[in-house]
């Protein structure tokens, strides 16, 4: 304590005494700085400062008293009255006493001792004060010991008392100077308590205190700093040593916030960062700090603050965040997306650098592997979770209850340890999660985090599994409902069809005498029958899309014929135009399948324009899928295809319907207006052909539907039957030929006899294949052609055809096929059938097929049985 400072303090305490010491020695040593942040961040070795200050005050009291004694001495010499006045005016208590008798008490002492003015003095002054054992020797500061005085009112007061020998009324007396120390003591106690509390608090949170001299880099730290930063080791001595502990990835961030703070951008700074401890473990710390002093130019000189270990909190935060994000991932992602989202999440959560994250199913099969870069940005050399290497190691994880850190020893190249944890739902083990490749390896805390992830995943997985089960039930229910709708639509349509047949055939009977009316009635019956056939066809083709393999087909003639037929049935308001490139190449498709797909697209276009009218353009062209066309799966890029498009000028497709276009039973029409099989049938048919369908609504309006089928190298000639049945140009007269018609259904046999006889053929029937074979064997030259049903008792149509081929190779066989049989002759029977006619057939198609088979046989021969191939009558049905 310097004398200058002491005198300044003294002046504050004792103005009079200060005047007495004026002119004393000057200050001789500089005072140490007092840290500004001391009240909140007092370091242990500074904590005695309050005590020192108190001591200073006491010493000053004594010094002041002693100096006052000199003044008194001088006053006494000047006269008793003046002495009294001086004593009275003293700023502290003075009790004058002699041999235990109180002679005089000044006002200050009265206040301290709670003595009312004018009260008798004797008994009121506590005796302890009047019996000092040994007064301080003159000229020396007394001990200044604290005396606790019990006062008359029951209270107590702590005083410093100094007694000196002096004179009063020219006789020896003792002067006891007293000063009430209650306030100071209270302050001291409070300070001590506060210090204790701070120490306890710091201890409790284990905050470390530090101060760094920015000029020298010297670091001063509290013990707790070491506990946080270098447990069990030696704390760093300088700033560089400290910063070396900070995780490289976090250093720049820390430096940035400190720089901001030093430029006075922020009043203080704080930074959460990872540190690496000597034992290799990683911990999270929170650093608080601020500039403690600046130099005269405002430059920071010293930085001080605290560090706190927040590892536990960070882990908890990570886990909370992870829980939320996991929930989000599970709620929004499905299938492969789910796995990859989860993988990304795990990588982040485990605080990369991990070079990989893997998820395995319960069999140890790798389901997901994510490679990531290392901390330095270097690409990993390999995937630790290479499918072949890992399962063996991970099997151990599956068998273990908790997380497992696997260290591969004996590997050719040393690999970082792998951390794996079992992923399950209840007793059910679904797989495991593994991370690997982190340079620093994995610690117990990482294992805990990963185990936490797995634990958090469990209920999510559980609910996911339940939800999937529910989804499956729901999907099934929806399917059943859709089937109900479909059945309802079909029933409705079918009953109408039957109604028309029933009603108009009854009218036909009435109209037997009126050929014109009769024809009209029968037309209606026939139309209703066609409707019924189409309805059945739609249903069947939905359930049985197509044959897997079909011979190459030139699609242009088929499309041409189709457009021609469709055009005839359109109302005047709808124009149908075709733009077909002559050489489109070949596609591998059964003709009736492609035909059905195109019919459906065109029908949709017609329906779209029923109200408004417009133009439908059917086009076909060879094309190559560009590499950047996102309407196609990636493996379609650069593929050579044939594009079939149907464009209409209708109203387009409302946005809300686009996603459901290919749903099996989706329809915008009323029940009974159509069963909604159109586009889904197209999709099914085209998929069956290995093709692709697109539906677009161009900005210009309307709808553009397109079918893309892979183009195949033309091999030889297309099957002649690729072409839809075309009507021979104006035909007259009767056809010639001897037909053996085989069918187990007597109605069909009767019908065939009528139809074929009318056309001019000679018809003989057989109820099954065996009878037919016998006839051919018995009378090999009596038949020019065999027409057979496919499904019959005894032999099938195909078996019959094979037998016929053995008996009489030149005898052509035509198949009358049900709708559920492939109609392409080469497909149906491996070239055993010359032609295929689809049931229900009408005279025209059957006669045409027979005629074609007889005239364009494999041998290219002309007419059969001595009869020239005549012309086919256009309407054998009527």
């Amino acid at each position, binding site marked *: 304590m310097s004398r200058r400072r002491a005198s300044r303090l003294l002046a504050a305490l004792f103005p009079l005494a200060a005047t007495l010491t004026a002119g004393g020695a000057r200050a001789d040593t500089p005072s140490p700085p007092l840290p500004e942040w001391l009240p909140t961040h007092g370091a242990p070795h500074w904590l005695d400062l309050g005590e020192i200050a108190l001591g200073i005050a006491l010493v000053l009291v004594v010094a002041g008293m002693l100096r006052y004694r000199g003044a008194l001495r001088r006053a006494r010499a000047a006269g008793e009255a003046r002495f009294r006045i001086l004593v009275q005016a003293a700023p502290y208590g003075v009790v004058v006493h002699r041999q235990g008798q109180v002679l005089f008490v000044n006002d200050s002492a009265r206040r301290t001792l709670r003595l009312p003015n004018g009260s008798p003095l004797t008994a009121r002054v506590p005796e302890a004060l009047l019996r000092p054992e040994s007064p301080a020797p003159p000229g020396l500061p007394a001990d200044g010991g604290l005396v606790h005085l019990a006062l008359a009112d029951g209270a107590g007061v702590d005083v410093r008392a100094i007694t000196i020998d002096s004179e009063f009324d020219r006789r020896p007396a003792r002067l006891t100077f007293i000063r009430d120390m209650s306030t100071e003591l209270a302050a001291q106690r409070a300070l001590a308590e506060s210090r204790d509390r701070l120490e306890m608090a710091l201890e409790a949170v284990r905050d470390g205190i530090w101060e760094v001299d920015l000029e020298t880099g010297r670091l001063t730290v509290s013990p707790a700093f070491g506990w946080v930063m270098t447990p069990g080791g030696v704390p760093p001595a300088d700033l560089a040593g400290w910063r070396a502990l900070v995780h490289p990835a976090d250093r720049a961030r820390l430096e940035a916030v400190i720089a901001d703070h030093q430029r006075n951008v922020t009043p203080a700074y704080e930074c959460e960062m990872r540190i690496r401890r000597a034992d290799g473990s990683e911990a999270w710390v929170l650093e608080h700090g601020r500039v403690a002093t600046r130099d005269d130019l405002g430059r920071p000189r010293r930085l001080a603050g605290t560090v706190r270990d927040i590892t536990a909190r960070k882990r908890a935060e990570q886990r909370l965040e992870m829980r939320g994000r996991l929930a989000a991932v599970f709620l929004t992602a499905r299938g492969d997306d789910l796995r990859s989202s989860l993988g990304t999440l795990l990588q982040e959560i485990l605080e990369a650098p991990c070079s990989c994250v893997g998820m395995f199913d319960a069999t140890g099969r790798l389901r997901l592997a994510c490679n990531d870069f290392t901390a330095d940005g270097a690409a990993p050399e390999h995937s630790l979770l290479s499918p072949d290497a890992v399962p063996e190691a991970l099997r151990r994880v599956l068998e273990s209850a908790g997380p497992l850190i696997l260290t591969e020893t004996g590997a050719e190249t040393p690999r970082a340890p792998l951390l794996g944890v079992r992923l399950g739902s209840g007793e059910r083990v679904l797989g495991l999660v593994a991370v690997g490749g982190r340079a620093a390896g994995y610690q117990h805390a990482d294992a805990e985090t990963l185990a936490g992830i797995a634990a958090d995943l469990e209920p999510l997985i559980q609910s996911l599994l339940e939800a999937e089960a529910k989804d499956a039930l729901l999907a099934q229910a929806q399917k059943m409902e859709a089937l*109900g*709708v479909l059945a*309802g*639509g079909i*029933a*409705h349509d*079918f*009953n*109408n*069809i*039957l*109604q*028309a*047949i*029933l*009603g*108009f055939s*009854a*009218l036909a009977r009435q109209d037997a005498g009126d050929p014109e009316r009769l024809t009209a009635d029968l037309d*209606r019956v026939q*139309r*209703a029958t066609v*409707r019924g056939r189409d309805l059945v066809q739609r249903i069947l083709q939905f359930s049985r899309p197509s044959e897997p393999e079909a011979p190459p087909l030139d699609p242009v003639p088929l499309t041409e014929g189709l457009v021609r037929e469709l055009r005839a049935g359109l109302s005047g308001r709808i124009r149908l135009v075709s733009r077909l490139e002559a050489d489109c190449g070949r596609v591998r498709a059964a003709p009736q399948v492609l035909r059905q797909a195109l019919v459906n697209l065109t029908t949709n276009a017609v329906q779209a324009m029923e109200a408004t009218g417009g133009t439908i353009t059917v086009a076909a062209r060879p094309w190559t899928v560009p590499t950047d066309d996102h309407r196609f799966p990636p493996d379609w890029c650069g593929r050579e295809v044939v594009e079939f498009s149907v464009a209409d000028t209708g109203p387009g497709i409302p946005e809300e319907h686009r996603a459901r276009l290919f749903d099996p039973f989706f329809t915008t*029409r*009323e*029940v*009974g*207006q159509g069963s909604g099989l159109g586009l889904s049938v197209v999709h099914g048919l085209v998929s069956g052909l290995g093709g692709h369908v697109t539906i677009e609504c161009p900005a210009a309006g309307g709808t553009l539907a397109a079918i893309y089928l892979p183009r195949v190298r033309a091999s030889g000639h297309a099957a002649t039957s690729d072409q839809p049945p075309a009507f021979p140009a104006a035909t007259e007269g009767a056809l010639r030929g001897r037909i053996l018609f085989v069918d187990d259904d007597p109605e069909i046999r009767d019908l065939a006899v009528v139809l074929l006889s009318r056309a001019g053929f000679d018809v003989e029937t057989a109820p099954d294949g065996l009878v037919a074979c016998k006839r051919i064997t018995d009378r090999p030259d009596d038949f020019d052609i065999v027409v057979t049903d496919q499904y019959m008792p005894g032999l099938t149509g195909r078996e019959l055809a094979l037998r016929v081929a053995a008996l009489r190779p030149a005898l052509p066989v035509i198949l009358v096929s049900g709708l559920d049989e492939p109609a392409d002759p080469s497909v149906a029977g491996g070239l055993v059938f010359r032609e295929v006619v689809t049931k229900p057939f009408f005279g025209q198609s059957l006669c045409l097929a027979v005629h074609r088979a007889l005239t364009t046989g494999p041998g290219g021969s002309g007419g059969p049985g001595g009869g020239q191939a005549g012309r086919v009558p256009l309407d054998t049905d009527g």
Partner: protein
Amino acid sequence: MPRILIIEDDEEIRDLLESLLTREGYTVATAANGKQGVAAFLAQPFDLVITDIIMPEKDGIEAIMDLRRGRPDLKLIAISGGGRAEPENYLHSAQLLGANRTLRKPFTNEAILAAVKELIS
């Protein structure tokens, strides 16, 4: 001559009924859905209405409710081939709402003519 309105969205059935009833001497008008049917009915009176049930725009049930309103004497025949439900379900509803006769499709020409005659004579 009694006037009959046929409300039916299926052209074949419409034509069949029209042809059938015209031959019997009735004056027949047709409508392709319930909405058109009700409009036609309001434009001019009919003695009997034959209506289908499942139709676009306005179905037969709604049409019957509209037609029956204020016309307790009107004769109504409902016909149906069903849809999402059995024809009887629809026809039962139609009966409750005031259809005098119901016929399930497909019905014979004789059946519908008998019903018409019975109601109109």
